[in-house]
């Protein structure tokens, strides 16, 4: 009996072909090369630690000069405006784009691929690259920032809105289709009401993401508090920098708390 069992136990591992073995070796080599070449060695960490400590000591205490705080406050307001305007306009534009690209829902199936591609393009190019493009095309300042958030929001919401629309309950859509309702009527009457919780969730995530993005866009000249941060570092005003970093921390945290509360209230 024991013999029979032994003979029928499957092998611990499936056989590996030469190609698979080569692939594993290549992947291993890439990981090892990456870790050894670009991660800090213990010596460099040891050298850097005192410098970080020195920088921290020059950052403290954060600047609380009223003039500076006033200027920072208005830059924070501008940052929020960039985030809000960019997200709202982005969400408004995402809805028709998502509709045109959603499988089984789009009124123009032949163009769905084009709109999906457009959304992918918007999403895959990082926001800082978009910011550079808009700074060059519309000039330095908040307008370039708003354009960046808008495009970034379409890249994010366009995809998730389309997925929510594709996942919407099919039964009411079929029921309305039978009455002779137009594609737009079905979208407004059945798809959007059903997908609404998901659309709101995605919008809140987009807003959260936009606040985080809008904070750094200033680094490349696209307006907002990031510009102040860059100036502070460029001019070695480390006490200003620490005040700005604390303000950013508070604003991002506050936004996450707020969107979290909203999400819970809506669910």
């Amino acid at each position, binding site marked *: 009996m024991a013999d029979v069992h032994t003979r029928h136990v499957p092998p611990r591992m499936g056989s590996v072909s030469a190609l698979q073995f080569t692939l594993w070796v290549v992947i291993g080599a890439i990981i090892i090369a990456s870790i050894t070449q670009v991660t800090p060695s213990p010596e460099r960490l040891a050298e850097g630690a005192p410098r970080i400590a020195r920088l921290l000591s020059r950052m403290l205490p954060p600047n609380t000069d009223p003039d500076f705080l006033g200027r920072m406050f208005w830059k924070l307001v501008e940052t929020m405006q960039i985030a809000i305007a960019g997200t709202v306009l982005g969400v408004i534009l995402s809805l028709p784009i998502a509709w045109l690209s959603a499988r089984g829902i789009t009124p123009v199936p032949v163009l769905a691929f084009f709109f999906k591609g457009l959304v992918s393009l918007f999403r895959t190019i990082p926001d800082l690259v978009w910011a550079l493009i808009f700074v060059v095309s519309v000039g330095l300042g908040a307008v370039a920032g708003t354009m960046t958030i808008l495009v970034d929001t379409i890249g994010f919401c366009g995809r998730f809105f389309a997925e929510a629309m594709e996942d919407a309950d099919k*039964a009411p859509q079929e029921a309305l289709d039978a*009455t002779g309702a*137009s594609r737009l*009527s079905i979208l407004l009457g059945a798809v959007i009401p059903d997908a609404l919780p998901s659309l709101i969730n995605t919008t809140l995530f987009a807003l959260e993401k936009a606040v985080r993005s809008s904070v750094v866009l200033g680094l490349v000249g696209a307006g907002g508090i990031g510009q102040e941060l860059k100036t502070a570092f460029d001019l070695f005003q480390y006490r200003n920098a620490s005040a700005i970093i604390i303000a950013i921390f508070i604003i991002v945290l506050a936004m996450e708390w707020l969107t979290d509360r909203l999400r819970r209230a809506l669910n």
Partner: protein
Amino acid sequence: MPNRSAVAVSCTNLAKRYGNGAPVLKDISLQIDTGETIALIGSNGAGKSTLLKCLIGLHDISGGKLNILGEQFERAPTGAQRKAIRRQIGFVFQQHGLVKRLSAHSNVVQGFFGLAGGWRAVSQMTASQDMRLAAMEALEAVNLTEKAQSRADQLSGGQSQRVAIARALVRQPKLFIADEPAASLDPSSGRDVMERFSHLAKDFGITLIFTSHDMEHALSYADRLIALKDGAVFIDAATADLKSKDLAGVFDG
């Protein structure tokens, strides 16, 4: 009183096949008069759904002639005919097909889609006052006015199907087409829905064609029973003349 002499739907030598496959419907001739309630029964694959889709002009037919609510055609209705047919039909589905997050009232208002001014029927908020009023009257007809503001997902299965019936009724159709309207409900709600539905159709003089797997429903709520087997009419008789034993064989392979 509805005019019972008028023909609602008739077909002569209707045949249907998909592509080059075997015929799904073979040589079906029948006439359904205005105001009649018809139960269409048969086992899965007998051709019920296909016949239903042909009878509303949703599927082209491979042979024979069709007359649906005065629109006559062979093969396929024209675009205008198809629209005219749809405008006069109220559909009720097995899965009800209500928009869950909208109120019962809004769902009934959506019955106006596809009719004149139907673009406003997105919800009761956007609909005209006439549509809102008509929707309330339809809810009254299914005895659900007190649930008008309840969300569809808060209704019981039977209530939800009654809202779907109100949504079909608000179109003031000449013909109700119901695909297994009670199949998703428990037996008691199923009987309640069928009872109300068949009475409503009679009260408003609307022809009702429903499919069912339930013999009791077919015999209790229809004037006439049409049983399909292997794509052909197996029984076509007034339910008053039928006994359960006459139906033996309908569901046999």
